[in-house]
């Protein structure tokens, strides 16, 4: 089956994702609902449905397209730190209770009750939007 790795993660990236999630302190377990779509069960927190992608930039059109395919998704990850998202996509998804993250952000968001609200701050207290650049 042909997979567009400019949209979906490579197998080695999926392996990496599953390994990291398995070892996350807030994660009890996880199960794969479909290819690239997971349900993550957390300690004392609600489960999170996450779609794992490898889009270099998640734009608003991408968000709309994928949320249409996965209406129950709480989070969309574009897995690599080299990837990112537009401010427009981030703000629109946030309004709908959906978080768009790069992987390193998602690992922090898993600790939050409402992951879509996750914001990382720098040492001066300024919000870091890793995926914006």
């Amino acid at each position, binding site marked *: 089956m042909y997979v567009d790795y400019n949209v979906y*993660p*490579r197998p*080695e*990236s999926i392996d*990496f*994702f599953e390994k*990291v999630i398995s070892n996350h302190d807030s994660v009890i377990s996880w199960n794969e609902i479909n290819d690239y779509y997971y349900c993550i069960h957390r300690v004392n927190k609600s489960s999170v449905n996450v779609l794992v992608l490898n*889009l*270099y*930039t998640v*734009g*608003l*059109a*991408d968000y709309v397209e994928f949320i249409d395919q996965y209406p129950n998704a709480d989070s969309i990850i574009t*897995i*690599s*730190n*080299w*990837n*990112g*998202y*537009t*401010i*427009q996509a981030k703000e629109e998804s946030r309004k709908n209770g959906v978080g768009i993250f790069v*992987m*390193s952000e998602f*690992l922090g968001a898993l600790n939050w009750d409402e992951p879509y609200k996750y914001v990382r701050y720098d040492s001066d207290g300024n919000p870091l939007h890793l*995926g*914006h*650049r």
Partner: protein
Amino acid sequence: MIDEQKVMISYSRDSDGHNKRVISFANFLRDSGYNCWLDQLFKQQETSIDFNEMMLKELPNAIKVIVILTPNYKHRAENFIGGVGKEFRIINDEILKYPTKYILVSFSPLATIPIDSILPNGLNGREILDLSLDANDCYKNLFSKLSDKPLYIFSPVSEQKIEPMAEKIVPFSIAKKKNADKDSIFSTIQEYLIENKQLLTQYGPNSLVALNNPISNSVDTWKQLKQSTIIPNNTKIIMLLESNLALLGKKEKEIFYKFKIHAQAFALNQEERNDKEAVPQFPAEFETLIFKED
């Protein structure tokens, strides 16, 4: 020091004024260190001088003979009249043998009299020293001829002859030069593209480190290299091609503009992410264009 060898003056006794002027000229030469003699001086040495004998003796022995030309001198010389006639015979005999001995001069400016009117036949074409002009130059020419000292120092002729280097002209071909320029520019661009590609392969989104560890901090290196090297290289490529657009064909320009749009959008994307549709990827055809000569 007085030169013992005599400088003789040959002249015609045209008038009392002319005679005194000749004597004055002789005194000027004597005052200038030249042992100048003329008939009047010999006449004062002896009470009954034989002018024929004097001329036959003194002219051939003189180191220099100044011939003061006037119309009357010409007349008497050509017609062998008097002392001038006798002297002229000797002058005619010797002037070819001793090319530096006889000095033909004129007191009158040569610009005001025809040369033919003062120069005896047989001396045609010879140089006449215009003393009225030479006076303005402190008689440099006269003293040069009397002393056999050159007015100017001329360099000796070198044994090594300088010959011009023949310049090789390349065959006429505008198109060839254009291609040479283009090749050179493309070659430079190749270096920028190669460097960018190396960095992309090593640290870019599809690098081994990015695939094996998507949360690697190597992304920071990538971000730095984009700013320090990749974007500046792209800018150099754009500047290079924009200043040489005439070298590109229509299709090549089209490909270049695709690259330019990509490069500018790529740079803007570092400031803030834009939709992927607004950031066209590097056009592979640009790489083909730049490397096609290889």
